[in-house]
């Protein structure tokens, strides 16, 4: 466990210094209090590793003994705070009702005043002594433990495990001792490791002010005060005690970072891969970009070929896309269909430079003749919004909660507009996407709108740049079923009316079947079949496409028939290379042959299996599955045997 090794390293200064303090009588070379005025203020030497102070006392011994003082007081404070806090917090949560309300109130009260000032007051009133110091620091110290323990026990009380225990008739005392106390103590103990630093700093701070521990008992803060006159002359007096306090506090803080927000920081580090953000132009990625499009018509607005994307994930570098081709023409709706992780989103976000900076995008992608991959950010920025606009999956996540609908749509306007002119155009757009009260909605915040309304807002923002290509990434999967078809119809109508090309991404073939002109089926980062929607639904060739269609439940059919699910396999996630670059789907495939596991399997026109093009198989229908092609060929010769 590398995480644990790191934890031990981080805790090393804390543990070493605590141990040194604990063993001070045996470890310290000399007595911390024996003075020798003839040997005062000696710099570090073989006899005194850290020199001597103004009274000739050995500095190293004093620092070790000071550790003993500090760590003893700290330990006492923490034991008191921990025991009182965990008990009170756990009791409050366990008993509930009035007790819990009182506990919560007192805890919040204690946490709402600065602890060191209260400690000062307590010491000023009750006088200077070690027990008073411990009391002064515990007065407030327990509250944080109580809050943590209360939270943990509250969570446990709501769990089925707790209900089961009560149901089994376990004795309350047993429940408290065996289940409630450990539940409360565990997170409190984690907090304690980070609290050590705070307590040590406070103890040292108070003795620095001449409170708490009195001379001649050595303490770090107090040693510092005594070193004040020698700031210029004897660095060995003021440097080591400060370093000792800092080491303990730093160790404790690092443990806190490690236990608290460590995953956050690990993710952060992942982003600093060398050359991470560089998007390089394709270096001979297999397929020829000049290959003619699969279907005839006007020039494509967006044409992508040989697109390959590598992503950094916590599990390492993963190829999310292994070379994908697609193209969309004005007025056309192209659907990208596949399960999550198949590379649908990556294949549209990659060319636009909208993936994480660490993503490596190669291949070719041109928008109206402008090459996107490897293009400077400024070029991409001009294409985004005004050329290619995106509607996102989760309209709540894609809208900044702190900004009004109007400001979001207005910033997307191309050409840019301000003031009343912008407001008018935004209202027109809101009306165009079917929002009933544009003049109200324009000043509303996302949380005031329903999911369907939010998605309409995002569509309005996408239209604001007058794009020619509209990408909709799962635009309906976070919406109610009733709203889904409205949004899909809206997208299709807008596409037709404005002569836009629409790329619709979905995991659900049934959803896109009504809207899309053409469907590209993706699996594990590759395109496995592409065909006009009608042809794909009526004669799916690839076993994966077939499975997708079979997985759609049909009303009226008895349960258990014609509702097939795919077997799970090792190859479910994207990027797992099959053996020798063969078919990614082989692990789940019913048609698998030996040849499927060797060599790359590109998309091939289905008509090639039968040059006459009968039976609805045309050049526009392509599939990456040789066994399926063979079957299709057979089926066309024996139509009666089909399926």
């Amino acid at each position, binding site marked *: 466990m590398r995480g644990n090794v790191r934890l031990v390293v981080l805790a090393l200064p804390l543990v070493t210094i605590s141990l040194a303090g604990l063993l001070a009588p045996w470890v310290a070379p000399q007595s911390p209090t024996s003075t020798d005025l003839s040997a005062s203020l000696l710099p570090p030497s073989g006899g005194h590793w850290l020199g001597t102070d103004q009274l000739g006392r050995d500095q190293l011994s004093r620092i070790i003994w000071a550790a003993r003082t500090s760590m003893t007081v700290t330990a006492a404070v923490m034991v008191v705070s921990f025991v009182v806090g965990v008990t009170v917090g756990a009791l409050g949560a366990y008993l509930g009702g009035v007790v819990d309300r009182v506990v919560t109130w007192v805890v919040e009260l204690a946490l*709402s005043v600065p602890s060191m000032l209260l400690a000062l007051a307590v010491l000023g009133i009750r006088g200077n002594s070690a027990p008073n110091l411990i009391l002064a620091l515990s007065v407030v110290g327990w509250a944080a433990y109580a809050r943590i323990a209360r939270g943990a026990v509250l969570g446990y009380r709501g769990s089925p495990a707790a209900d089961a225990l009560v149901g089994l008739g376990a004795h309350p005392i047993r429940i408290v001792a065996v289940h409630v106390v450990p539940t409360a103590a565990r997170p409190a103990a984690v907090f304690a490791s980070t609290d050590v630093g705070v307590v040590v700093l406070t103890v040292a701070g108070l003795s620095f002010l001449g409170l708490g521990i009195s001379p001649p008992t050595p303490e770090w803060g107090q040693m510092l005060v005594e070193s004040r006159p020698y700031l210029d002359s004897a660095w060995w007096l003021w440097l080591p005690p400060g370093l000792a306090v*800092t080491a303990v506090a730093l160790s404790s803080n690092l443990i806190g970072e490690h236990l608290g927000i460590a995953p956050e920081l690990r993710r952060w580090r992942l982003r600093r891969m060398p050359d991470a953000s560089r998007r390089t132009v394709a270096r001979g990625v297999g397929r020829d970009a000049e290959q003619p499009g699969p279907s005839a018509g006007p020039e494509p607005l967006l044409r992508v070929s040989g697109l390959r994307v590598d992503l950094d994930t916590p599990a390492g570098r993963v190829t999310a896309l292994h070379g994908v081709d697609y193209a969309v023409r004005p007025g056309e709706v192209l659907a990208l269909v596949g399960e999550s992780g198949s590379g649908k989103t990556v294949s549209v976000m990659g060319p636009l430079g909208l993936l994480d900076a660490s993503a490596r995008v190669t291949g070719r992608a041109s928008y109206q003749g402008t090459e996107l991959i490897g293009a400077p950010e400024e070029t991409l920025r001009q294409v*985004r919004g005004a050329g290619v606009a995106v509607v996102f999956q989760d309209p709540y996540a894609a809208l900044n909660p702190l900004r009004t609908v109007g400001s979001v749509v207005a910033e997307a306007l191309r050409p840019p507009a301000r003031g009343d002119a912008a407001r008018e155009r935004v209202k027109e757009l809101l009306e165009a996407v079917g929002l009933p009260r544009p003049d109200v909605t324009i000043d509303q915040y996302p949380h005031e709108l329903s999911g369907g309304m939010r998605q309409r807002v995002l569509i309005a923002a996408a239209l604001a740049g007058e794009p020619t290509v509209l990408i909709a990434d799962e635009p309906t999967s976070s919406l109610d079923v009733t709203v889904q078809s409205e949004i899909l119809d809206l997208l299709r109508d807008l596409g037709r009316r404005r002569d836009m090309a629409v790329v619709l991404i979905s995991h659900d073939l049934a959803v896109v079947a009504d809207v899309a002109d053409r469907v590209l089926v993706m699996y594990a980062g590759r395109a496995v079949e592409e065909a006009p929607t009608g042809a794909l639904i009526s004669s799916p060739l690839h076993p994966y496409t077939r499975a997708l269609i079979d997985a759609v439940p049909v009303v009226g059919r008895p349960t258990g028939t014609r509702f097939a699910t795919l077997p799970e396999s090792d190859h479910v996630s994207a990027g797992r290379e099959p053996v020798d670059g063969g078919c990614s789907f082989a692990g789940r495939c019913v048609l698998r042959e030996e040849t499927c596991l060797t060599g790359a399997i590109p998309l091939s026109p289905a008509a090639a299996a039968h040059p006459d093009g009968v039976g609805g198989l045309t050049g526009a229908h392509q599939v990456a599955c040789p066994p399926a092609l063979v079957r299709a060929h057979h089926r066309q010769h024996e139509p009666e045997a089909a399926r």
Partner: protein
Amino acid sequence: MVDGRRQRALTGHVLSAVVVLLVLTFGTFSLIRVTPGSTAASIAVRQAGPGASQEQIERIRHELKLDESVVTQYGVWLTRALRGDLGRSERSGRPIAAEIGEKLPRTVFLGLGSALLALVMGFGAGIVAAVVRRGPLPGVLRAVALVGVSVPTFWMSFVVIAVFSERLSLLPTSGQSGPVSWIMPWLVLAIPAAGTISRVVAVSLSEALRQQYVTAARARGVAAWSPTVRDALPNAVGATLNVTALQLGTLLTGSVVVETVFGWPGVGAWFVDSVTFRDSGAILAGVLVFAVAFILLTRTIDVVQTAADPRLRRTEVR
């Protein structure tokens, strides 16, 4: 437009703050009265002067109402305090309120300067760490922040005095001789708060930069700075306000140490002197002043946060 709900929320804030202050001062007051040495007897003895007879002491006890119940005595203290009378300092014999009045502006000046520094350094380093992301800079900033949080204020004061005053003779060690003498106290007080603020800002901003609304804004083709500044930053700042308030609150604690080290004649140093002298009236007044300042700060930020986030604001029916 008068917003009834917002007004009620504000009233609630004020009420709970008053209750906290009452409990806190009553607790301190009771502790003073039940602790031998700091209680009635010694106060009466000191007031009566050396060699006073038992009767004289009893009379003074009675005059000062020290023989009444704690609640009654607290009631007397509270009514006087509300009129601005916090009693007399046992140390100087002067009215405590006057002493605080003299010293408070200096502490406020120290606190405001450091707060500004802490905010600028904390947010600056945090934003840079989150936006840069690559290269050694974020790691360096993170390490500096953690060390800044871990170094005790009093020791850092010594280090900077040793370097800038004793060794380089650049800055004066104490006094209030103009801006040059403010640099070290402001900086030393600000550094721990800046460290924590920068960590929280860095973490919450890099979190915000990963949100989909940032990608969505980029997809709209807006200027390169816009998603960071208009979308990620406001969300990140909202999440850091609470911690920021608490950190600015710790400046109060720090001022006690910094004022003592740098000979800054403010309430912090005065409070330490009162504690050392065991001047219970002054200690009680000090607790009151610091608690008021702390609560004012945190509650204000609470209100600001509520006002700044539309999700926490009242949704008007239109």
